[in-house]
């Protein structure tokens, strides 16, 4: 379709051009002064009207539009800047608060630790004392027991040996002589065990 129109156009153009060509005498139409005055007149008129309308009505409007947009954008940028500053200061405040609370937490932790350490120390001292006391008591008991033990052993030894002798010989043996022998033995034995 477009092709057809295109070729038709070229064809008719060709006819038209031939017709014009026959009537043309040559030379530059620009240098023909026949319509110079008309052109000057219409140029002055159209250009003048266009210039007046443009300069009085349209260009000030465009200029005002541009200025308005510029100022609006400037205002927006300023507002954004302000908000950014405020947010930055808030961020700083927030960071300060965090720092302060961190310090506080640290102090509290330190105090608590010291307190706990003190408590533990005091309790430990008390416990140590108690333990020492109990150890002393136990040692004393052991000492008394140790001290009383040879006598008891001697006594038991004397009694058993008298019983043994009674059963073996069937006669009463003098208690005092047995005790003397046992004491003697015990002394020797004790020297052996405890190294006097």
């Amino acid at each position, binding site marked *: 379709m477009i092709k057809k129109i295109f070729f038709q156009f070229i064809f008719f153009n060709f006819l038209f051009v031939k017709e014009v060509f026959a009537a043309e005498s040559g030379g530059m139409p620009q240098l023909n002064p026949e319509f110079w005055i008309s052109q000057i007149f219409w140029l002055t008129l159209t250009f003048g009207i266009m210039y007046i309308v443009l300069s009085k009505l349209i260009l000030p409007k465009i200029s005002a*539009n541009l200025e308005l947009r510029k100022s609006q954008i400037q205002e927006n940028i300023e507002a954004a800047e302000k908000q950014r500053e405020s947010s930055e200061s808030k961020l700083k405040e927030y960071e300060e608060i965090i720092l302060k609370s961190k310090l506080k937490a640290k102090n509290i932790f330190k105090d608590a630790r010291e307190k706990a350490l003190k408590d533990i120390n005091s309790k430990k001292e008390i416990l140590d004392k108690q333990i020492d006391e109990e150890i002393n008591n136990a040692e004393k008991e052991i000492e008394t027991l140790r001290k009383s033990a040879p006598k008891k052993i001697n006594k038991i030894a004397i009694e058993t040996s008298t019983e043994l002798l009674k059963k073996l010989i069937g006669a009463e043996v003098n208690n005092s002589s047995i005790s003397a022998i046992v004491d003697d033995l015990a002394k020797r034995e004790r020297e052996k065990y405890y190294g006097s």
Partner: protein
Amino acid sequence: MAANPMTQFEVYRIGPEIKIGTFDISFTNASLFMVISSLAILVVFNLGSKKNSLLPDKLQLLAELSYSFVSKMISDTAGTKAKPYFSFIFSLFMFVLFCNMFGMIPYTFTVTSHIIVTFVLAGFIFIGVTIIGFLKHGFGYLKLFVPSGVPLVLLPLIVVIEIISYLSRPVSLSVRLFANMMAGHTMMKVFGGFVVSLGIVGGWLPLSFSVALTGLEILVAFLQAYVFAILTCIYLNDALNLHH
């Protein structure tokens, strides 16, 4: 059998003949495209400035980008003193640009391909800049023709050259735009004629040239408008900030 590539530049009357005194000011196809270009500029920039949303739509973006583009161009070349002339240079740039661009549409008329149009614009700029220069600096503006640091022997020659170059400004400004537009459109027409005469067999090569040239011409259309505006800024800079 190529068609005459100059027929596209012919001006013809649309509607009745209008005369003021002995002057013929009839509405022509050139006038039609001047009106179309001006109206298009007004419509585009009016729609582009109607509502001001923080996130511009396409037309608003177009209008604001054009505004800042021209504004930057002026402040770069002519400094802050040129601010009062912003509207004029903006209108000038847009008018030339839209006329050039409308000329790129097939079967349209290119207003700026006529020497009289570009010469009127350039002449107006030249006279305006000269008046501004004399108003700002008085006769000190003539120092423009006396560059500093030139040996006294060479001075008469230099002054003559400077004056000639100053006076040729409107000519160079207008001829540059007119010749660029005319040459481009003529070339495109010639290649188009080749396409027709070579037919479907051999026409593809000039057709591809024509396509490439269209791209180039769109670039030239923008570039010439830009050059026209920036040269105006440079002349204005000379008048505002005399630094010779």
